[in-house]
Structure formats: C-alpha cells, structure tokens
C-alpha cells in the first residue's frame, strides 16, 4: 500500500515536471502596464503586439500585470515580477518607467528588461547590459501634427478662421513634451507659415473632462481653430467643446477620428503594436542587442498619420492630404529636421 502511494506521488511529481518543462519551454515574458489598459488604446495595442510575438514564436502568452493608477506602486510591481524569477523578459513602457527599470535592472543583473517608448537617458547615460530600450521620435509626431494644424488653420475649411493660431493641450507637464514634442509641433506649423502662433494649455489632470472643455473654450476664444490633444482622457472634453464651437481637433498616438469625424480631422499615429512584436521576436531569437537603445520614428514607419482613414480622406481637402503625404515622405527621407537647425 505504502509503495503504491509513493509511486503515485513520484508519478504526479514527474508528470508535473515534464508538463512544466514542455509547456513552458522557451522564454517567458511578463508585461507591466504603467497605468490602466482599458482606457488606453496604446497599451491595448502593446499587449496585442506582445501576444502576436508569442504566438509566432510558439510561446506561452505573456503575463500582463496592470499597474493601475497608483504610480508609486509601479516600481514595486516591477521588483516583484523580477524577484519571482519566473520570467525571462520583463517589458514595460513610457518615460515614467525609465528610472525604475534602470534601478531594477541593476538589482537583478540576470533578468532581461525591455523599455518601450521610454527615453532611458532620462534615467541614465549608461544603459545596463540586461536592458534594451526603444524610443519613438516624438519630434516626428510633433512635426507632422504641427504641419497638419498649420495647413488646416490656413485652409478654406468651413471652421478654419482667419487667425493664424493653433493650440496644443496636455494633461500634465512632461520634459519630453516640453523639450521635444511642442517645439517640433511649433516648427511644423511654422514650416507652413512662420506667422502661426501656438497656444498651449496644461490641464493638471488626466481625468477631469470638464477642465478639458473649459481650457478648449479659452483657446477657441483666443482665435485657435485646431487643437492637438496630447493623450489623457481629460482632453476628451475638448472634443465636445470643439463640436459645440465648430472647431477642429488632432488626435495623438491612436486613431480616434471615429469618435467625432466632423471634429477630429486627423491623428498622428505610432505603430507600437508592430514595434513591440518586432522587439520581442528579436528577443526570442536572441538577436536583440541588450545594453543599447533604439530610436524609431517616421523613417522606420513607426510614426505615421491617418492617411488611410476613410473620414480623413472624405473630410480633409485633397491639397492638404497631398501636402501631408509629401511632408511625411520628406520626414522619412531625412530631408526635414523636425526640431529645426
């Protein structure tokens, strides 16, 4: 009887071990989302890209951990994930995680880390050997959006006024936006007409929709006829206000034209899904150069515009569409320096 029990235990143990080895063969990945997934199409696309990579490589689906809105907990969650020693690769996103990922990468030198669309140089000049960082050229995004805003404000579109003023609205202040994106936006607009003035509003909240509407009203009163909304659901209040006032909006990062096609004329996009997929596939093939940083933008096709959106094609005048495509090609060819000389 005793021997039967011992044999059963050994059998179960071996079965579980074999299942674990077979089932989890190959690198396993965990993704820490610094925020919430549901209201952020960018993170949703990231996860899709990671899942596609795992599927192509024939690996188990990545573990996704949502950081939520408690910013202070992100670093602890990253440490916890690394401490479990269950995952070969830990992936996280955005500039806000730069400091944390460098710190945790130094704490766990055997663990591999990937930071996507985050400027690692905000945290360190020397990238740890177990960390790979991919950064998007936000200046490409800013320039494209600014060029489009400039074309719209100078156009004969029914809601474009005579004032040469364009707006930009952001939920909070970020060095990367202030130092790179906003100057590129202004530069893009001034490439259309040097007299164009950029007016900016900071809401001080990511969730206060009323504040977004009020700030937009103030910009429109100043003569602004098109505003670039830099993420944040609070900015959605501006869409509503633009609809009432008969003004225009430019979306950022993802295509939101379908929300209000008459108001949101175009969106500057990043193809983060493909980028995440490519990075992970290279990591699975051991060809990802850890200890380095990669910068991608319009040239690599990662930054683009809603050129193919049916509403964009229908509502935006053809000459603006042609000018935008031309601008994009020049940006891809390196003929334009988005931040100027």
């Amino acid at each position, binding site marked *: 009887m005793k021997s039967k029990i011992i044999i059963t235990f050994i059998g179960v143990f071996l079965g579980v071990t074999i299942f674990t080895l077979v089932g989890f063969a190959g690198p396993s990945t965990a993704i820490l989302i610094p925020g919430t997934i549901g*209201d952020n199409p960018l993170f949703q696309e990231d996860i899709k890209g990671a899942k596609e990579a795992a599927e192509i490589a024939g690996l188990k689906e990545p573990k996704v951990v949502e950081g*939520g809105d408690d910013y202070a907990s992100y670093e602890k969650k990253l440490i916890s994930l690394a401490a479990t020693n269950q995952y070969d690769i830990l992936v996280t996103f955005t500039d806000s995680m730069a400091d944390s990922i460098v710190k945790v990468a130094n704490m766990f030198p055997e663990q591999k880390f990937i930071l996507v669309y985050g400027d690692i140089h905000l945290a360190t000049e020397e990238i740890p050997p177990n960390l790979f960082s991919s950064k998007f050229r936000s200046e490409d995004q800013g320039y494209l959006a600014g060029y489009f805003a400039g074309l719209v404000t100078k156009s004969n579109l029914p809601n474009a006024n005579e004032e040469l003023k364009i707006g930009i609205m952001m939920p909070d*202040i970020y060095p990367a936006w202030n130092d790179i994106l906003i100057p590129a936006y202004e530069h893009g607009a001034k490439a259309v007409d040097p007299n164009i003035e950029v007016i900016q509003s900071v809401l001080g909240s990511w969730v206060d929709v009323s504040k977004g509407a009020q700030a937009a009203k103030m910009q429109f*009163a100043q003569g602004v006829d098109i505003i670039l909304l830099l993420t944040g659901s609070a900015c959605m209040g501006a869409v509503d206000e633009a609809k009432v006032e008969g003004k225009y909006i430019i979306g950022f990062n993802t295509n939101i034209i379908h929300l209000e096609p008459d108001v949101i004329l175009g969106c500057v996009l990043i193809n983060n899904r493909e980028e995440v997929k490519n990075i992970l596939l290279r990591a699975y093939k051991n060809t990802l150069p850890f200890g380095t940083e990669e910068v991608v933008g319009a040239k690599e096709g990662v930054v683009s515009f809603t050129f193919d959106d049916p509403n964009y094609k229908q509502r935006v005048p053809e000459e603006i569409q042609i000018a935008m495509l031309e601008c994009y090609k020049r940006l891809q060819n390196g003929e334009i320096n988005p931040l100027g000389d």
Partner: protein
Amino acid sequence: MIIPLIDSVIYTMLAATTPVVLAALGVMFTNFSGMFNIALEGMMLVSAFFSVFVVDITSNLWLGMIAGIGAATILGLSIFFICHYFHAEIFIVGMGANLIATGLTTFMAVQLKGSSSLIFENVPKLRRIAIPIIENIPILRGLSGHYVIDYLAIAISVICYILVFYTPYGYHLRTIGKDEWVAKTLGISITKHQFISYLWCGFLCGLGGAVLSLPVGVFLGGPVGMANGRGWLAIAVLCLGQENPLNILAAALFIGATSALSDLLQVTTSLSPRLLMALPFAAALIAIVFYMAKEHKTSLGIKI
C-alpha cells in the same frame, strides 16, 4: 479679441462653479444636522458613473440623472445608517465611503466595459441651453449656453436660502446645528432631520456628479477620478460661505473665477502652467486663512 475672452471667462467660471456649489450645499445640510458628511467626492463619483452608465443602457438622460442621484443618495444614506445605528465615527465612515466609491466604480467599470475609464460612443449627451437675446449680447453671452444643471444650481441655491432661513424646517435644522439639546427640548426629531439632510446631500451631490459625466458621455475612474478634488473644494466653499446658501454660491463663484483665470492666464501669458494650475486651490486656502483670522479677531472682540 478681448470680448470673446471675457465671454469665455464668465462661461468657464459658471461651468466650474456648478459641481462645487451643489456639493457645498449638500454638505451644508449635513453640517446643520450635526452629521458632517465628508464623502462628497465619493458621492459625486458614484453619481458620475451610474448616470452615464444608465444613459448608455436606456438612452434617456433623465433616467441617467435619476440613477446618478439615486446612487449618491444610497451611498449617503449608508453613511447615515452606519453612523446612526452602529455609532461609528462619521469622519472615518466618510473616508471609507470615498474609498469604497473609488473602488466600486473602478471595479464595476472594469467588469462591465473592461476599463476603469469609459468613453461611451453614441450616447445622448446633455444639451446646452441658449438664452434668447442674452446669447447675442457681448460679455453677457457667457451666461448663455450652459447645461440645465448649471442653471438649476443657481436656482437651487436660492431655494436652499429660502428653505433654510424662511421655513419652519430651516429653523428646526439650524436649531439642531446650534444646539442639539435645545432642539430636543423643543421636540424636534434630530434623527428625522439628520436623515432628511442626508437625502438632500445625496440629491445635490448626485446632480453635481451627473453634470461631470452627462455632458460628455464619459466616466473616468481611478484614485483621483473625474470628481478631481471638487468634493474637498466644496468643504472649503462651505467654510467660506458661512453656512448661508447665497454666500456659498458666491464663494463657489469665486473659486470658479480663479479656475477660469488660471485657464485664461495659461493661454495669454507665459507664466508657469504648474503655478497657474494651483491658483484655485491657493485662492481657496488664502480665503479660508483670511476668514479664520477674521473669525478669531471677532471672537476676541476686536472690531474689524
């Protein structure tokens, strides 16, 4: 260019005032009844969630508004019952209610739509009401084009003033606020008035929450949530308004004006946005400090 800016400042001031004044009037009733409710933020948040969610299901704005008011009232009455029947500390329960509101709305939003922040497409939204003639007069134009709840908030402030100062109910309520023992000897039911004050608070905070989500068809949850500190600001407004509904309205307009000024200075000057964003809160703080200093001097018999 200046006149449209003035229009916008007036418009923004009124729009920013509404949720704050409604919540401040709500907490005023509970303060009179001797059960000061600090869960305004939570009550506005549940209202913001349920109102837009019910509108999404029913496509009826009135039902949405009723659902928001109902949700805020249920939360308010829960606080009342817990404190009244279990003798719990009102501030602790209020804090708990704020946390529950955040957790509950986030949980339900994630369960129902997969996200703590919901953007409802194709839901009916509150319409703005243009006031004939006024909408064409420069400067006064800012008074037109608001939502029905914005105008209701002003009317409710006046109604509350009459209710509190010119009706037997108001006398009874204020008596409880001044001295519960005296109220008891006069045969006034304290429990009944406390219960009714929480009904008022639920109704007013419910309206305040609905005005955040119904005009845009959006609910944004999380630790801060779309109430974004307005519940706490309402308590500051109550202090400034000295328990007089019309003064509360004036104090809320003052806070609304600083908020509008903050937005205006951002688009017209090169002052630091971070500094300007703190303006409404700094103004409230300074106003309360001056008020407290004045009260202190008065209590010492110093003529001001």
